[in-house]
């Protein structure tokens, strides 16, 4: 249903605004939620387990940066009605798009691997072996996309986004020390310890990822949000950024209050879930594992499809699930290839997952500045954006984000080399 119709029945301007918000809501919240995917949750829970509360201060600046970047994507999508890949191509030509697409493909494939490994791990926590969970998950992703329309898929996704509340509950069940948590939220703790910096890079890298910019813009374009409702879409982006960081915050808090305080060494999500049970109760552990499954499945539904979509969009090839293989060979090849290959690789015992994830993080880090810089260029282009060009404040925040991201990426590569 298009909630805009509701405006006919409401006299109260507050209710009208709510109906309008509901009608454009989705892209921002979904993108931000997918942001807390298998890689994200792993990073957040390890940050809490290994460093306790000291990393909480990063969430306020990360929320602001994410909100600014997401808002730019939404604004570009609403105003131009085009995807980011199309805009970059029209602005700069095919070479740069080709480079970005190749890296994006590699990075998103790495991310998809992480999602399938997340599915496999969380299903094992519930006693479902990988050879059952992986094919089932691949099938689920396939059916959801082939059978669903954007509107129905979006609804499934919004429900999935709501399920992230399990992490907030887990956070409370862990009975954290709120005084220390609050103090660490507002007072930055800076350390030059290599492990600390690596974790910092991981946190930022997993919160602001290149694929999100392509996805959020494609989603508002697909939703055809009219320009005059841009402000509601902006609210969607900002709400999404806040919600996602609140969820991440509670994951860190839950792990800090239990695993870190008791000094239990953990390296994977399975360790964390197992460690949570005696410390915070079975409910917290089950909720944690369930949230992880939900997040992995959710992101696994979005990444392969959206990747195939942007690559074809950027190169001007036919795309769309309803086209036949003959009509859109590259699209179908990529889409099926990513899912099948990811599920297969994760089925291999002892696959060097950590190296793969590290490489995909590096790829993310290399790609992100390019994507952000071109977003900034396009968002300042009067020919494309008309009166909706960036304000100066936005340029400052986005510029600072780009500089920090570049700095962190360089640091990550440097630490990796050492």
């Amino acid at each position, binding site marked *: 249903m*298009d909630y*805009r*119709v509701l*405006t*006919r029945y409401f006299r109260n301007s507050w209710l009208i605004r709510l109906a309008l918000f509901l009608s454009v809501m989705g892209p921002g919240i979904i993108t931000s939620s997918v942001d807390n995917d298998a890689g994200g949750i792993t990073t957040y829970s390890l940050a809490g387990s290994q460093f306790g509360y000291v990393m909480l201060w990063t969430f306020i600046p990360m929320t602001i940066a994410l909100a600014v970047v997401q808002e730019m994507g939404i604004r570009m999508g609403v*105003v*131009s*009605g*085009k995807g980011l890949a*199309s805009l970059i*191509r*029209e602005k700069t*030509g*095919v*070479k740069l798009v*080709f480079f970005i697409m190749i890296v994006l493909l590699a990075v998103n494939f790495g991310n998809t691997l992480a999602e399938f490994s997340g599915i496999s791990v969380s299903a094992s926590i519930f006693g479902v072996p990988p050879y059952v969970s992986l094919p089932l998950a691949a099938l689920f992703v396939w059916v959801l*996309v082939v059978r*669903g*329309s*954007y509107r129905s*898929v979006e609804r499934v996704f919004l429900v999935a986004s709501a399920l992230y509340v399990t992490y907030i509950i887990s956070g409370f069940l862990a009975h954290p020390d709120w005084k220390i948590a609050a103090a660490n939220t507002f007072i930055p703790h800076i350390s030059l310890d290599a492990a600390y910096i690596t974790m910092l890079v991981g946190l930022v890298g997993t919160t602001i990822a290149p694929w999100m910019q392509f996805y959020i813009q*494609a*989603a508002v*374009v*697909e939703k*055809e949000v*009219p*320009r*005059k409702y841009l402000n509601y879409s902006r609210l969607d982006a900002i709400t999404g950024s806040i919600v996602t960081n609140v969820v991440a915050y509670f994951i860190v808090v839950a792990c800090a209050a239990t695993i870190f305080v008791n000094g239990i060494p953990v390296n994977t999500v399975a360790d964390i879930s197992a460690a949570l049970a005696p410390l915070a109760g079975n409910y917290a552990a089950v909720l944690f594992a369930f949230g992880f499954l939900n997040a992995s499945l959710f992101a696994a539904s979005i990444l392969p*499809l*959206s990747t195939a*979509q942007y690559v074809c969009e950027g*190169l*001007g090839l036919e*795309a*769309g*699930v*309803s*086209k036949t293989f003959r009509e859109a060979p590259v699209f179908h090849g990529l889409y099926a290839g990513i899912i099948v290959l990811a599920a297969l690789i994760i089925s291999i015992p002892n696959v060097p997952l950590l190296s793969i994830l590290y490489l995909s993080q590096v790829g993310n880090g290399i790609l992100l500045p390019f994507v952000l810089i071109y977003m900034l260029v396009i968002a300042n282009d*009067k*020919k*494309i*954006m*008309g*009166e*909706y060009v960036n304000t100066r404040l936005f340029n400052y925040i986005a510029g600072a984000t780009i500089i920090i991201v570049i700095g962190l990426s360089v640091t990550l590569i440097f630490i990796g080399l050492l």
Partner: protein
Amino acid sequence: MALLSLSEIVKKPVIDIHGEKVGKLVDVIVSADTPYPKVKALTVRTFDKNTLNVPWTQVEGLGRQIPLKVGRDEIRPYDVQEHEVHLVGDILDKQIIDVQGKKLRRVNDLQLSPTNGAYRLIGVDIGVRGLLRRLGLEKIADRSRIRVEGTYINWDAVDTIHSGPSALQLKLPKHKIDKFHPADIADILDQLSVNDGLNLINALDEEAAADTLEETSPERQVSLIEGMDAERAADILEEMSPDDAADLLGDLPADRAEVILELMEPDESEDVRELLEYPEDTAGGIMTNEFIAVHAGLTAQQAIEEIRTTAADVETIYYIYIIEKDETLAGVISIRDLLLARPEEKLAAFMHTDLITVHVRDDQRDVAKKIAKYNLLALPVVDDEKRLKGIVTVDDAIDIVLPTAWKKRVPKMFG
């Protein structure tokens, strides 16, 4: 001289008559004339970062180097006319409409052909070969003997789309897309961004725009009408059949719908307003109030005369409904009955009186079932007093079983 690809000359050095470098070629300006636009000027980026438009009359030729006929100081900067097109800025990497394939394509390269000392734009490369050439990978493809076909479209089989932030009424020079079936235009429209779609629909005349809108999904109709100037929206809605217009207006915010209704011709807007009264999923919500109704007292000859004068704008004239003075439905005849009847015969004598009707508040699915069951082309809709309020035609019944949104949903990311 052979054909030239735009990608072969872009970024190549421009040399003046004394052999001195002036700068690099960054764009090619062509006239807007059809079918094959002539190159009018070259845009050169000089080494001091200025751009300079060199008129074609001062250019010696095109190639790996671009020699000029004059010295650097003798260049007379070309004055670009309003309708002239920048090949790199306006066409390359942008979307175009392939008129023959009736599809949206992205331009990978452009082909120029030398004729009588001038170059003309003759074709668009939309294939993988053009893509590889742009990426500098064409030679690799040749060497590895991968068969990569070039896919070209003739320039006269291409329609351009004006892109930009402003969804202003920009009349494009002659559109070839005009000759498409509205359903084909709608397919292309669904793939465009809303702004480009608006430009396309604004370039069509009102009737074509109305037919095209009827073929697009309800969501797309709403975004287009909302993006349009209200006056133009009203003109287009007047051309739509009242039931489709009512469905569309029903999906718009109430204040916007009211503005548009006010701007429509009173007799058109009255029909639409009447239909808007009924809930969307009832017979009243899907019926049209354009139908042919005559009085029972007429003869066949008189009835034909009357139809001739009143039926020009009515979509379905296969059934002629016979009404009493108080508008209650008395009977129905088909065009066939009417043509076969003797001219002086009274309609009352041969009309069918065992009528199949639905009530305005009946569920739309029951309407579809009745149409299917009795194999009708249209079904009369009556109110509590048995007055004829409208008809539901078979195409609208099909839309209930196979919703337009489903038929027309154009896949982007999901679908």
